[in-house]
């Protein structure tokens, strides 16, 4: 009976070794790929997540609350002063796919003379001195768009209000997440307005 016990032990040892090997191999492989940079795809274009936790959060649509903005920009004050959304600040929206956020220089065209003593405006000035952009935090904080192409211009041309998707930003002091932008939201609106609901209208 001794040989039988021997065989069992051998089998146990081999199985344990294989298990460890598999785990090590998996760890080594992913670690090696990550450190030498070959696995680094551009985060702008792909929905690749930095970690498993991030992937799980994205999967269930859990988004972190937007971090504090560097400047407490108030849309309300600007809207009250009759500055239209697309004509001065988010000019891209009317003509192209991306609405865009105005740069420091754009802000200072007005703010060199208006409210220059406001602490936030002074902050903008310091950004300009250091030749830096304002590190805005994304309000919706989506992962890089997952194969969805959104074009602002056709929507503006079709007369869709900015507030339909962005909420009543002109009432907000600091922009907050107001509308849940999921596929159902887009499709509902497209259905109502007899726009294309073909998959390939947005996904390509």
């Amino acid at each position: 009976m001794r040989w039988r016990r021997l065989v069992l032990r051998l089998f146990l040892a081999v199985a344990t070794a294989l298990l460890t090997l598999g785990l090590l191999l998996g760890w080594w492989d992913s670690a090696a790929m990550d450190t030498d940079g070959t696995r680094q795809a551009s985060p702008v274009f792909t929905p690749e997540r930095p970690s498993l936790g991030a992937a799980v959060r994205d999967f269930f649509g859990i988004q972190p609350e937007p971090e504090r903005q560097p400047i407490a920009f108030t849309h309300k004050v600007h809207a009250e002063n009759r500055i239209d959304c697309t004509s001065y600040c988010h000019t891209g929206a009317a003509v192209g796919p991306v609405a865009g956020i105005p740069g420091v220089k754009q802000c200072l065209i007005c703010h060199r003379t208006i409210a220059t003593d406001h602490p936030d405006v002074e902050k903008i000035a310091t950004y300009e001195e250091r030749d830096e952009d304002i590190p805005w935090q994304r309000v919706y904080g989506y992962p890089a768009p997952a194969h969805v192409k959104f074009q602002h211009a056709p929507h503006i041309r079709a007369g869709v209000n900015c507030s339909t998707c962005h909420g009543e930003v002109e009432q907000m002091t600091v922009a907050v997440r107001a509308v849940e932008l999921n596929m159902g939201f887009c499709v509902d609106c497209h259905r109502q307005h007899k726009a294309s609901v073909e998959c390939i209208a947005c996904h390509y």
Partner: protein
Amino acid sequence: MSRRWGMVVDLDRCTGCEACVVACRAENNVPTVGETEAARGRAIHWIRIERYWEGEFPNARIRFVPVLCQHCEAAPCEPVCPTYASYHTADGLNAQVYNRCIGTRYCANACPYTVRFFNFFHPVWEKPLHLQLNPEVSVREVGVMEKCTFCVQRIKAAELQAKAEARELRDGDVQPACAQACPADALLFGDLNDPDSRVAQLARSPRGSKLLEEVGTQPKITYLARLSWSGDGEDR
């Protein structure tokens, strides 16, 4: 009337230079998988030039056949997809929706032309190659199929442009990257439903035939036979 995008490939003009292959890669962010993966048959190229030799060396003749997605009317890849990731658009494109793809690879098996490609790993663009990516085309991820889209981003852009200018799309407004890059004008793209378009005219040519027509897929790419082969064989 709705459009029906199609293509004509003039085999008489094709020189096998593979400019279309390169142009397609650049336009569509087609990933490069690397040597080892390519050796395992995992290279991705939405359009390929198939080469066939005939005869023995001094009298060898070579035949080039550019093969890309045939955007079949009765595409075998479409009904087999359990999630509708592969489906037919109103203008006759055989669309692949990357988001919806879960990677059963069934469509790739069903495709008689083997023009569907799978991302076995996450595609990688080593820095600074990522800067060459086309922002109009989404970069696919691990586990999804991809294939020739007839440069749908260009079709969409042209349609939006026409709409902004309040006019109809004209023949020649849309050029996929391969057709644009072809130095010999062997590839021609257009609306098959417009009887006056150049592509529709050429598709009616008696030289025309379809690839693997007998499988019953009703492809929308017409191959024009090589004229010079009917002569004395003095062709290269």
